[in-house]
């Protein structure tokens, strides 16, 4: 299916950009007329993915984070977050709840939150090359929403 609209952005892995990234993706997603709850889910998932890039992928360096978003006529949104950082050795291990290499005060919940707030999550990573996280969510169409009250 062809997307009805798409956008991409890239920015430096400064932590101040966490709010910029989630707000920007949310603003673009607004074209699908999501509910406040759906927008909040998207913002939370993007925030987790971008934080992972900043804390893990580019641990001791500043690198570039790339996000591309596609929205589809049927209400589907696909968000791709990519870095060229250190990569993840064991993706399955990294996805485990409460597992974190992020040091003090990192709850180790990032992937778990992304998985639970979005419909689908796919993580591919290559050590020394970087990581790609693809998130997908179906936004309920407006007619369906009003029919459901």
């Amino acid at each position, binding site marked *: 299916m062809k997307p009805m609209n798409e956008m991409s952005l890239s920015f430096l892995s400064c*932590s*101040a950009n*966490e*709010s910029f990234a*989630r707000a920007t993706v949310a603003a673009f997603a607004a074209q699908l007329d999501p509910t*406040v*709850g759906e*927008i*909040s*889910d998207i*913002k*939370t998932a993007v*925030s*987790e993915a971008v*934080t992972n890039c*900043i*804390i893990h992928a580019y641990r001791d360096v500043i690198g570039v984070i790339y996000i591309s978003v596609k929205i589809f006529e049927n209400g589907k949104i696909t968000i791709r977050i990519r870095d060229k950082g250190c990569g993840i050795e064991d993706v399955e291990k990294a996805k485990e*709840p*409460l597992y974190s290499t992020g040091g*003090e*005060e*990192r*709850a180790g*919940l*990032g992937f*778990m*939150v992304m998985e*639970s*707030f979005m419909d689908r999550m796919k993580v591919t990573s290559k050590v020394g090359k970087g990581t790609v996280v693809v998130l997908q969510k179906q936004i309920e169409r407006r007619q369906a929403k009003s029919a459901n009250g």
Partner: protein
Amino acid sequence: MDNGTVRLILEDDVLTAVLSGEIDHHTAQGMREEIDFTVNRSKPRKLILSFEHVGFMDSAGIGLIIGRYKLMESLGGELVVSHLSPKMEQIVSLSGVGRLAKIEKGETNHEANE
């Protein structure tokens, strides 16, 4: 509604930290430092983290709760978490942090997002 800020109110032995704005990895650090500074100085019996004026929180908020729980535990005190929005409760229940801190329901009056 952008940067996370903290307002601290000390009454008797109870320190209330009224958090506001957005809580993420970037803003949590400043909030943490401010709260810990006052906790270490005043050694309260109880610390209340109020999320009533928080418009957004990701898992950095869980780190904030767990870290403050450990701090209060080391001082022999108690941690209470109040006014979580339904979305925040969803993250909190994923984390299992409800087993550590006392979660208090308050009439939620979230200003944004929820």
